[in-house]
């Protein structure tokens, strides 16, 4: 766990990591609880670029601990900077961003975070760990808390769980952190050893005054992530990030060249991007599925304004041949749908 905490601190650029929480979205909700305690304020400003599951989970928790949520929209795939700056004030406990955001776009976290700094709100950044080999770390961009979903780090898909959430923060928040934290110490003979540190934050000691109610989390999954990160290693982790960016750029270009497909936004991306389809998304997906391809995630349910859009993810498992096959299948499906409508 001590090794895991060290690795997550390196990835996020923040000095304090816990030993993991349940998964990504509930970690966002826990950050909200921390921010309320730290600032004694009760309002969150949340970008619509934050994962819809995270925003919904934050809203569920906020009803309990009594916080209000203000959402800020997107412009050209990125958080609307002017709207964000206008929404943040002296009552704001935290500003929530995600980079890359749910549409795949890499946000300028530092620039957006300035509004939070100015008003003394905490800056909470959700991030995709697989992009942290190449993207500037949230800590370097001024984040007070960096967190996210840990599944891509060597965890199985398992239809959504168990995986884990990572949660890192500045030194100033160390005594407000949720979850277990391993610490280095010595035994009576001076031998190096490790214990659970700062337990005085936790429910089994502090009860109703605890910083969070979490007890059983996802330690085994976090351990899996550490083994995976060691296996990738310093160079491998960076190369993997580059590989994802290159294949994603190729896929984006390849798909955008297909008749009936256009880019939803032109902002820079790392390993996901969104496209608009010239035929109903659900029908196109069904046609593509017949070729054994799950083409992407339809954005319509969570973003009614993007009813015609599809989010495409490229992992290291997707080869050039598969990307080409996806482009061909999408093109054929859109053409077939259009032909049916015309007929």
């Amino acid at each position: 766990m001590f090794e895991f905490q060290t690795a997550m601190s390196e990835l996020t650029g923040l000095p304090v990591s816990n030993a993991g929480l349940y998964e990504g979205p509930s970690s966002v909700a826990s950050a909200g609880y921390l921010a309320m305690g730290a600032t004694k304020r009760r309002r969150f400003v949340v970008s619509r670029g934050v994962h819809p599951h995270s925003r919904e989970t934050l809203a569920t928790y906020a009803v309990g601990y009594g916080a209000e949520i203000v959402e800020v929209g997107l412009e050209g795939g990125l958080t609307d900077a002017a709207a964000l700056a206008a929404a943040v004030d002296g009552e704001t406990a935290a500003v929530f961003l995600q980079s890359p955001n749910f549409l795949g776009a890499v946000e300028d976290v530092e620039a957006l975070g300035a509004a939070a700094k100015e008003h003394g709100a905490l800056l909470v950044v959700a991030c995709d760990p697989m992009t942290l080999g190449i993207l500037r770390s949230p800590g370097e961009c001024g984040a007070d808390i960096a967190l996210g979903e840990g599944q891509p780090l060597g965890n199985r898909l398992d239809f959504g769980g168990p995986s884990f959430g990572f949660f890192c923060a500045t030194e100033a928040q160390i005594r407000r952190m949720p979850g277990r934290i391993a610490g280095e110490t010595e035994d009576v003979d001076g031998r190096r050893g490790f214990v659970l540190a700062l337990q005085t934050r936790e429910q089994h000691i502090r009860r109703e005054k605890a910083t969070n109610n979490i007890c059983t989390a996802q330690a085994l999954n976090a351990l899996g992530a550490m083994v995976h990160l060691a296996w990738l290693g310093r160079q491998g982790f960076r190369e993997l990030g580059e590989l994802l960016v290159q294949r994603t750029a190729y896929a984006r270009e390849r798909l955008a060249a297909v008749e009936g497909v256009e880019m939803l936004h032109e902002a820079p991306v790392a390993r996901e991007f969104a496209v608009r389809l010239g035929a109903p998304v659900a029908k196109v997906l069904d046609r593509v599925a017949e070729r054994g391809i799950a083409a992407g995630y339809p954005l319509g349910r969570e973003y009614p304004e993007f009813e015609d859009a599809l989010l495409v993810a490229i992992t290291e498992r997707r080869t050039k041949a598969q990307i080409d096959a996806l482009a061909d299948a999408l093109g054929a499906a859109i053409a077939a749908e259009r032909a049916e409508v015309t007929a």
Partner: protein
Amino acid sequence: MALTQTPMQAETAQTIYEKSKPGRRAAALPAAEVPEKPLAELIPESLLRSEPPRLPEIAEPEIVRHYNRLSRRNFDLDSGFYPLGSCTMKHNPRLNERVAALPGHARLHPAQDPRRAQGALELMWLLQDSLGEICGLPHVSLQPSAGSHGELAGLLLTRAYHADRGEERTKVLAPDTSHGTNPASVTMAGYEVVKVATDEVGGVEMDDLRAKLAENAGEVACLMLTNPNTLGVFDENIAEIASLIHEEGGTLYYDGANLNAVMGHSRPGDMGFDIVHVNLHKSFSQPHGGGGPGAGPIAVSDRIEPFLPRPQVVRREGANGHGPSFDLDYERPKSIGRLRGFQGNFGVFVRSLAYVLSLGADGLAEASETAVLNANYLKARLAEGRAGERLPIAFDRHCMHEFVLSGKPMKRDLGLATLDLAKRLLDFGFHPPTVYFPLLVEEALMVEPTETETKESLDAFAAAIEKILAEAETQPDLARNAPYTTPVRRLDEVKATRRPVVRQQL
């Protein structure tokens, strides 16, 4: 005690970073295959990192050896008896691991279209149905990720239920013996805790309950209880407790951490509980993994059902000769919303359903019977000899799956704290029981043997306690300085909290 070091103690503990050498690696990544562009053309330089994160540089065989070595330095259930009270450290059948690892389970994408995830959804529905039957409450959400997450869900459900009736209530009652997660969840859900006292036989003090209800008339949202409670005692007044809370308009919440005592014998729903969480990692075959993963599904009564988290797994009857189908239902207007990403800890659900199906109704009931029998046997063994004198039972009556001893006489007569006894047990190859909980028992020692231990294990544990107490009569320092044989001895926890070192300096 001057003892020679064990081989593990003599090893210098090195982290993986300390074994790292520049240029070494394990992973060989494939070529991009696609036409490449300079990174800065794709993502503005200002958003890029100048140096990769300092991860270890180490080859695969050394990674394997490193983590294998670390695993051998842990005490786990596969190493020996682990009677950690309230945690139900029982054996998890290996078959269930194999089932969970099947590629159709392990590699299923969480955002897969429900029409192409019918097997997974049916499995979840079957588990919901089984847990509903075991709890005696018809509606189940599998979403909560652990017991404490289930508690938070239950309190948010209570809030939504009252809000729907136009009521705003601010207090939640919990006994002074409750798990620490209970009051922590209460605060997170925006309520205030009111403590209820424990009576002389270990149950809820009824006069105190009535008094607290009267003092807070119209304000009480919920009573959180576990039955059997953390003293291992089944509260016989439960029917009366339920009617008192219901008359006040509150909900009754069941912390299912102790469900392993009553499966197939009594059902929280029949006792009058409205909301129950089930720790799948305790009663239903999920290895604890040193602190997770687990899952804390909730079962609720009809009046709470409309508020369950979204999405909910539902079964739809087929038409025109088609079989039933399964879906994720998002159209739940009164729902409290999501508690987490996706549908829950599915991998845990697979193990738990495999466990329920392989034991069957009779097997689950027998498992609980054996858990209770083992606890009562061990309690009886520890009532003999020195243990009976120095470590008396805190509440002397038949226990359920666990029991609590008090080390008060041991401390007074031998100068041995419960912590000393716990540490000395490690030298005898046993993981200590839970110590200093519940809080109302002085020098508490909470023992939960579970159904998967043999009589020989229980006898050996009782014999070890007897031996430790005997040696303490002449050599009390032996236990006070224990353990001697573990990879590290007593650790300085105060230092770890006062001046926390939570990451490696690279």
